[in-house]
């Protein structure tokens, strides 16, 4: 059984201009000890997904329907008091911005000790001793001394280490990291990624890594989920996604990236703009920007199964699209029978 399973999640927000569905019918599963990368651009719904799992949606947001199963129990049915016991204990989160997600008026030690005192019932003395261990684990020099320092006395990379120490202090089963290295310089990013990998090997936590950086995904994730316009458009192993992407959006993302190991050739951008969530296009959300767009793309797109868990939401692989293609599609097998398409529920195993 999967450790964490999200089924048909829909999260909406009330805004001045109307109700927007930031996440619309998303399903996926995470196994113990594995790393899932969730990739998408601004507005794709990746951060709202993580906040929905933690039940930390802002006041104007509502989880309309769906299930978030953690070890088989639906988190959406938990009371706020029950959620508080789960947050930080079983499922921990690392936020993007280490500058603003620490409390500036508490020492680092107090902040790390707070979690273990609440969740593990440690005494103040034991909790502080544990905090020193955690700071050593994330390689903060002179841990005992730094325990009494305030967040402003740490650099950005050091603060992110403190965040990781805090998140891992109760040995969570699932760690959700929302753009954990985006605010950091590359040499510091490399340190933090290495640290997260080491931590995972040591503690066996499952990691959900939310990022826009496909390089970081290639480096750390076994599985990749690509989001666009509030839903999953492709899912598969990292090798499958990078070497044989099926959905034109995924292909476009990979083509538009300049690569450090390749110079010169002209980039192939994805034309147009990401969709406005208030006015979502009919059918495929990527349709208006897609070079393969066909008449059938105005219908709701099911997921197509390419074997080994690789799925993509695109009509290019449907027999009904034969004869509608205006430019030759990439060389991939056309699925003979559209009945193989799975519903999101089946997908989440």
């Amino acid at each position: 059984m999967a450790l964490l399973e999200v089924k048909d999640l829909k999260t909406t927000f009330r805004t001045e201009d109307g109700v927007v569905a930031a996440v619309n019918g998303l399903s996926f599963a995470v196994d113990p000890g594995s790393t899932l990368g969730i990739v998408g651009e601004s507005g794709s719904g990746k951060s709202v997904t993580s906040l929905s799992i933690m039940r930390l949606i802002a006041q104007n947001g509502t989880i309309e329907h769906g299930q978030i199963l953690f070890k088989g129990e639906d988190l959406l049915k938990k009371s706020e008091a029950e959620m508080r016991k789960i947050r930080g204990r079983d499922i921990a989160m690392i936020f993007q911005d280490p500058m603003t997600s620490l409390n500036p008026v508490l020492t680092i030690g107090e902040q790390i000790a707070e979690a273990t005192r609440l969740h593990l019932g440690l005494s103040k003395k034991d909790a502080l001793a544990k905090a020193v261990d955690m700071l050593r684990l994330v390689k903060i020099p002179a841990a005992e001394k730094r325990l009494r320092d305030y967040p402003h006395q740490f650099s950005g990379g050091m603060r992110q280490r403190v965040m990781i120490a805090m998140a891992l202090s109760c040995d969570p089963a699932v760690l959700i990291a929302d753009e954990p290295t985006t605010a950091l310089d590359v040499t510091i990013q490399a340190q933090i990624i290495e640290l997260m990998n080491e931590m995972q090997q040591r503690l066996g936590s499952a990691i959900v890594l939310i990022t826009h950086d496909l390089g970081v995904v290639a480096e750390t994730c076994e599985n990749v989920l690509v989001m666009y316009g509030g839903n999953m458009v492709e899912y598969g192993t990292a090798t499958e996604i990078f070497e044989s992407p099926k959905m034109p959006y995924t292909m476009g993302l990979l083509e538009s990236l300049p690569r450090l190991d390749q110079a010169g050739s002209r980039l192939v951008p994805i034309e147009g703009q990401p969709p406005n969530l208030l006015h979502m296009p009919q059918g495929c959300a990527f349709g208006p920007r897609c070079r393969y767009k066909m008449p059938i793309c105005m219908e709701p797109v099911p997921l197509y199964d390419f074997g080994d868990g690789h799925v993509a939401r695109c009509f290019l692989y449907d027999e009904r699209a034969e004869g509608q293609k205006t430019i030759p599609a990439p060389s991939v097998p056309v699925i003979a029978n559209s009945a193989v398409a799975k519903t999101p529920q089946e997908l989440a195993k």
Partner: protein
Amino acid sequence: MTASLAGPSGVPTASSDDLVVVRDLRKYFPITAGILQRHVADVKAVDGIDFEIRRGETLGLVGESGSGKTTAGRVILRLAEPTSGSITFDGRELTGLSRGELRPLRKEMQIIFQDPYASLNPRMTVGSIIREPLEIHGIAKGKEADHRVQELLRLVGLQPQHANRYPHEFSGGQRQRVGVARALAVDPKFIVADEPVSALDVSIQAQVINLLQDLQQQLGLTYLFIAHDLSVVRHISNRVAVMYVGKIVEIADRDRLYDNPLHPYTQALLSAIPIPDPDVERRRKRIILSGDIPSPVNPPSGCRFHTRCPVAFDRCKVEVPAFNEYEPGHRAACHWVEEHGGRAPDLVNGPAVLS
């Protein structure tokens, strides 16, 4: 290979191919304390840099936060006053010019800012934003200016009717196109692009990068492209300079720098960039530096990188390394490289043990 083909100072002579020549440029920001505003220290944002930018080329300037790359860009345009040093633009010395003397030169040097959300006046229409420099410099007014604005909007891939809209009606990528149109309005020769795509989504980045490259070809522009993303810099630049805490540590032709980086910092920086290909990533070995980037207020003595350098030795702590030329156009400031006849240390397989 012998060290220093270019004489003892390591600084080659400038030629007429160079549009911009920077020599020993420094910018210190004073730190004051107390009610008397006593001068207690300096932030040495740029601390003695030398380079030149050739006509029609793109020089990439890379570095991490606090390296001084943005300050360098601003000082070269004299948007910030240099503390000392010299900047020559098209054969004319810029330092020492008064504001009035500088004004006609402003037409020839423009800047594109990082944040397309903060660098456009929200109360002005896009048309008036692009039109303003035309009027200030007396290039066009009235109907002629309207016409020029429409032409510029088309040039950067927007519609002429967009002139009547306000910045908030545009997406990030479109706003950055407006920023480009404003910079191009006065028909400049030289543009400093300060992280022009960092705030944009990946799929939009490529649109703006292609636009900048097309414009360079069409209009014969010279770019100083400042960025922290080394993949983008490799893509767009002809030559690349690497900055670390106020100093340039290495400069070379693009491929030479990426294929044969000499300075240990350049090596570590390149190895830290993840490549979007899991196969390549599995085979790569990464150089993980220990420690943080030092503060430019109290930069380390000698070579500024010695506190994090895996091959640092005693000399690095006391003596500032010379910026020697090891191959034509390939300069680096490193004692290890100098003492090993221009060879780069192998940081992945040794000789040093990495912490």
